[in-house]
């Protein structure tokens, strides 16, 4: 695990290479370091950490920080298999503009920020966050709902989405529950 000092060193490196505003905050909690970054720098930060050895993207997951603003968070759990080291990269976006660059696809050499390898594993996980929280991943090759039905309205994992309260469609009430066929 990077200790608190190691985490500050990584944050310092990121500030040097990506600019001061790229890293917003570092936190060290229960033996695990986390860096909160500016959402628009996610590709550059992950590419930098990959160079440092954090080459395995273990998990991408969404969080809703309701009632705090900006509400939606996306977490990237990175793993360095050689040093058995983990670090979390976090970013926050507001609900009225929930847009983050997707890290799934490769960036070609002629595009800004390229060439850069993508993280194939993020494909399904970004789709899940889009489905559950409504975070739009720009540049994702196939951003569709993954667990909920395609015609579903709303993003059920948001904290202000009610538990239950959805009509169950039986034969006798299917027209009311599902609308005109």
């Amino acid at each position, binding site marked *: 695990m990077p200790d608190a000092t190691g985490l500050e060193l990584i944050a310092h490196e990121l500030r040097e290479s990506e600019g001061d505003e790229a890293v917003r905050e570092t936190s060290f909690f229960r033996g695990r370091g986390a860096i909160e970054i500016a959402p628009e720098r996610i590709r550059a930060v992950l590419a930098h950490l990959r160079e440092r050895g954090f080459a395995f*993207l*273990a998990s991408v997951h969404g*969080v809703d920080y309701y009632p705090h603003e900006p509400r939606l968070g996306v977490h990237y*759990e990175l793993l360095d298999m050689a040093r058995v080291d983990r670090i979390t990269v976090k970013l926050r976006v507001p609900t009225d503009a929930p847009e983050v660059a997707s890290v799934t696809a490769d960036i070609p050499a002629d595009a800004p920020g390229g060439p850069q390898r993508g993280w194939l*594993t993020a494909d399904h996980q970004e789709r899940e966050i889009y489905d*559950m929280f409504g975070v739009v991943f720009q540049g994702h090759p196939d951003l569709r709902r993954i*667990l909920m*039905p395609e015609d579903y309205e709303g993003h*059920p994992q948001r*904290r202000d989405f009610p538990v239950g309260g959805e009509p169950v469609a039986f034969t006798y009430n299917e027209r009311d529950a599902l609308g005109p066929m």
Partner: protein
Amino acid sequence: MSPPTLPPSTPTEQPTTGPTPSLSEYRQREQSITLAPVTQQIVERNAGDTSEELLTLNFGPHHPATHGVLRLLVTLQGEIVRDIKPIIGYVHTGIEKTAEDKAYWKVIPVVERMDYLSYYFNAMAFCGAVEKLVEVDVPKRAQYLRVIHLELNRIASHLIWLGTSALDLGAVSIFLYCLRERELILDLFEMSSGARMHTRYFQVGGVIEDIPAGFEGKVREFLKIMPKRADEYGAILNANEIVLQRLRGTCPLDADTLLSLGVSGPLLRAAGNPWDLRKADPYSSYDDFQFKIPVGTVGDNYDRFAVRLAEIYESVHIIEQALDGLPEGPHITTDRKVALPPRHELATSMEALIHHFKLVTEGFRVPPGEVYHPIESPRGELGCFVRSDGSSKPARVHMRDPSFVNLQALSHMAEGSYIADMIATTAMLDPILGGIDR
């Protein structure tokens, strides 16, 4: 969701102009889905030769070879798989949402039902995450009891995988043999916790109760039987020409591609990367035990099969050591703020009664923070992310389920192979749809 529109009874009743206006927006969008880009790619790959006809096959969701309700949209060129699109979500039950509405100790039964073959692992990931947040120490005896149950569960999970995979390859009798041994394990679970599946045995801070008298003897009996039976499975399958032909050299994938796809567990080890969280980042006293990590060489279906079969022996080995070294002491933390007081104290101690009442009605409060706790499940890295806002209910529970992530590797493995090899690969992938859809 919506029932299909019935065809009109007589053709004359059909409206004659334009697309049927009565279709819902969903149905219209569904009809608009095409596979044109895929078809175009394949035509380009064949240098403009369009003589080969493409067939799009809807494989599942109700098909015995999909190991659950997995639906695969497979594009075939003759017998060769050209494109696989997994469609999931058929058993999505919103467990992560449900968990946000429950006190921490009541979340354990719901997360256990995610990956329904490795329920101890789900509970372990969640309890481990909460223990990190609360900073509670788990007694050594509880850690050993957890290891015993986790490894028994790993064997049970691998037995189901072996049985169903062999079934997919045409060997029917193996399935019955595997379930026979799994039954012995479920009997052991019933003995220690009262339930055969979804046992709720792991609690935050330890295990719910100590193992009963005679449990150790029963486990040792099982440990004598299991390696012999695993030998038999190996002897049956490794001497079967059909099984070997269908596994050897089919659908290999190298370790680098697997890593970029986020694949972990036996699939990664089959490709020669000895990554195992039990060794690399030991939790729950795994560093006390000696065991080997089986690895494959080329990462084909046979390696995936061989690695899992070898893991059964290693699990047996771990359980033996845990039984031999099982320390005395409490089976759950003595911190009354987190764990229920023993039953007999309730009659004599007012404080115990208060703690009991607080825990059962409200549950314990957890300091605010976010943790991610990864463990090695039978299918790979099972990570549990828990965010606490300081109340007695979690603000977010997320499982990084290995089946969900590993499923992405299926198209990379099976594209360009025969459809029969795709079936074998799906079996060797060992996806559990309860874990994928959560």
